[in-house]
């Protein structure tokens, strides 16, 4: 990059401008990725953090997509799942977003109904008894309630048996755990007898088990990661934010491509001279692409750093999650798409005729 690095120094105003633009786009993409991950977690952590790998839904119609608001599984179904070969555990789980009221305030919560002693209960709440409720840290904070207090969950008055020091939420509401019996009492179960929303499964051989058991029981079984789509708010939110990120990536590629198009056109005379002096096309492409990579890496690096700092500073105000998936992955994607944009612009070097160097400038 003999010429490229010297061009960067010589035309530092133009390249600085480009760096700032790339850094700004990177900031937007990275911060948005952090925000998407944070919102996703607020919407789905009650599902993704379950100690299970699959969830079996029972939808009103066989072709319906899994949906937590419409699924109802019966005791026969979860018992049949528990008896199916290759199933390590099968626990009924009731899910209901409702309103909770303490002596001082009210807050929206999601009540998870779980059988006492189930592995689905967090450790401190494993001995949850009928008539009691375990609160997640956020639910306790929202209700200003502590162990021993009484809270009303969807009309059922329960005593707080435990406060779990975990941030677990569903559809942006904090989670509380009740026994399945208490949950069934307030969730207005449909169908015959007491029901739950889904069956949480741990499977030894999912491929062999799921299809046959689903067909026999009329359930629809998906992984806990796939089950996120069964939360309405997650699908809409995640889809919108991901679309914005894709658009920003495309805009980034266009901006970088446009810059290097103008830059390559402006130095066409230099390229012709270099070719006339004996520079191979491969040398010139390597030089120019190296220059693009330097600009991209510096711009993306700066933008990522600003986004990480901003996410850290605003962590209490917005649900931004900083991690490899929200920083490194967008950064690599931005460098890659920017590289493609630059490559499409720089490839015009191959068409520059060294004969043009004979023309006076």
């Amino acid at each position, binding site marked *: 990059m*003999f010429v490229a690095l010297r061009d960067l120094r010589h035309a530092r105003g133009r390249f600085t401008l480009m760096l700032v633009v790339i850094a700004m786009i990177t900031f937007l993409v990275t911060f948005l990725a952090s925000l998407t991950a944070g919102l996703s977690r607020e919407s789905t952590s009650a599902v993704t953090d379950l100690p299970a790998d699959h969830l079996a839904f029972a939808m009103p119609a066989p072709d319906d997509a899994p949906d937590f608001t419409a699924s109802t599984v019966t005791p026969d179904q979860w018992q049949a799942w528990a008896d199916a070969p290759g199933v390590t555990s099968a626990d009924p789980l009731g899910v209901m977003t409702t309103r909770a009221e303490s002596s001082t305030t009210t807050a929206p919560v999601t009540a998870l109904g779980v059988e006492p002693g189930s592995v689905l209960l967090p450790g401190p709440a494993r001995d949850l008894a009928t008539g009691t409720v375990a609160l997640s840290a956020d639910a306790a904070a929202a209700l200003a309630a502590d162990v021993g207090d009484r809270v009303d969950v969807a009309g059922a008055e329960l005593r707080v048996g435990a406060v779990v020091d975990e941030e677990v939420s569903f559809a942006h509401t904090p989670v509380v755990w009740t026994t399945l019996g208490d949950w069934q009492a307030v969730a207005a179960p449909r169908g015959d007898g007491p029901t739950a929303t889904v069956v949480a499964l741990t499977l030894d051989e999912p491929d062999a088990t799921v299809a046959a058991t689903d067909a026999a029981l009329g359930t629809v079984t998906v992984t806990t990661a796939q089950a996120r789509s069964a939360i309405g708010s997650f699908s809409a939110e995640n889809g919108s934010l991901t679309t914005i990120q894709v658009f920003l990536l495309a805009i980034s590629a266009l901006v970088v491509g446009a810059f290097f198009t103008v830059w390559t056109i402006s130095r066409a005379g230099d390229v012709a001279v*270099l070719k006339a002096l*004996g520079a191979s096309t491969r040398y010139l492409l390597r030089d120019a692409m190296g220059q693009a990579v330097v600009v991209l890496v510096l711009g993306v690096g700066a933008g990522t750093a600003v986004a990480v700092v901003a996410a850290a500073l605003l962590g209490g105000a917005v649900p931004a999650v900083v991690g490899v998936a929200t920083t490194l992955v967008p950064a690599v994607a931005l460098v890659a798409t920017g590289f493609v944009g630059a490559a499409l612009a720089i490839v015009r070097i191959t068409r520059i005729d060294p004969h043009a160097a004979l023309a006076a400038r």
Partner: protein
Amino acid sequence: MDLHLDRITLVYPDGDETLTAVDDVSLTVPAGTTTALLGPSGSGKSSLLAVAGGLTRPTSGDVRIGEDVAFGPHTPLRAATRTRLEQVGIVFQAPQLLASLTALEQLELHAHLRGRRPATVRDEATALLGEVGLADLAHRHPAQLSGGQRQRVAIARALVGSPDVLLVDEPTSALDHERGTQVVELVTRLARERGAAAVIVSHDASTLGSVDRTVRIVNGRLETAEALVPG
């Protein structure tokens, strides 16, 4: 090594017709001598220079450097580029220096193009800048040099790596008579000292007093050739 232009013809497409820019020209330039190609605008002298430097493929005929065919009608682009890099130095009508490189770096670039560290030619580059009278200005960028100084850097750049052939296109067009004459004298002297076969294209005969031979080209054909004067 001598430069041989053997029956060079260059025909350009010109709408539905064709235009013969160079018509069956043969010319030999012995090593260490300078031949001036003189002629009016559009006579074909720059086209002949482009063929001699492998910038344009001839329609027919060959360019030989020594005994080897350097550029012909079917020479691959990559081979022509390699030959230019290793055996041909070109000075353009305008100096065509790269704005981001200092005078010294313009010369060191040659080493980098050949895959070597620029430092490997630093001594030669410094000496060449000294020979063209710019030793003190080695670290200046083109914008910090006068037109004549830029032209001399371009001449020094063309001589890095001791090319067998030195091609100079209208070196005096932007200079006054005195400076133009000095530039031609510089090219002639350096070509002689370094044993390069040099060709200078010019339309101004008054600056060419120092060259070994003057060849006139009109309508793409050699018209007259003055006798080679021993240097």
